[in-house]
């Protein structure tokens, strides 16, 4: 959209358009994040598929996280545990943490990360001390 200001034609960017630009920047950052942190996973997807993956799971994450860091963790766990991990009956802790309204978002992110990490490492073998990564 253009408008005139003192005889000059100027480009006007409406809030809706600005929001779309911001949304696009967020998606691009998340796509780069997945490529950086989960290269094997990202390699299997075409660029358009990766973007669809980001959009789909970003929508799923938004009810639980307002911050991009929280959304980013949610997508990380999708890469590691699979889509729908938050509703997976085999991972009841995920839903419990995500829907726990007595904690704030920062705590939710830390708890989800810690619990997911413990899940990924699995049970500690008897008589062994696990080294941390």
């Amino acid at each position, binding site marked *: 959209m253009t408008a005139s200001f*003192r*005889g*000059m034609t100027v480009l006007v960017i409406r809030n809706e358009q600005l929001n779309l630009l*911001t*949304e696009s*920047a*967020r998606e691009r*950052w*998340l796509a780069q*994040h997945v490529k*950086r*942190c*989960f290269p094997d996973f990202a390699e299997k997807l075409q660029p358009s598929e990766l973007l669809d993956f980001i959009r789909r799971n970003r929508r799923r994450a938004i009810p639980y996280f307002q*911050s*991009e*860091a929280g*959304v*980013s*963790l949610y997508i*990380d*766990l999708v*890469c*590691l545990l699979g889509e729908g991990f938050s509703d997976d009956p085999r991972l009841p802790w995920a839903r419990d943490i995500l829907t726990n309204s007595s904690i704030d978002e920062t705590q939710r992110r830390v708890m989800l*990360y810690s619990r*997911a*990490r413990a899940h*990924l*490492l*699995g049970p500690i073998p008897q008589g062994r001390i696990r080294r941390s*990564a």
Partner: protein
Amino acid sequence: MPDDPNQNSASALDTAYNDGDNAPQDGVAPCPANTWFRVRLVDEDGQIMAGEDFIVVDSAGARHEGKLDQNGEFYIPPSIPFGKCTVQFPNVHLNPKKRKK
């Protein structure tokens, strides 16, 4: 890199979690560089308004003053911080072209 696949997954999560801390808050990473500013002033008929006084206050509060060049323009090279600038033409009402007839 640990050989244990469980350790690999946990390490990947650690890396991703730390990377997530750098996620831009508004979706656009802040750029530390400076920027430039350029304005051209013309009247309602599209005629350039050369020599007009201007005052620009940048987002850091620094004041830049001067007169528009023969093209009715002024240019501040990449030296000012990103953000909103205010522009004033304090004497535009004194311009003979702008006086009411």
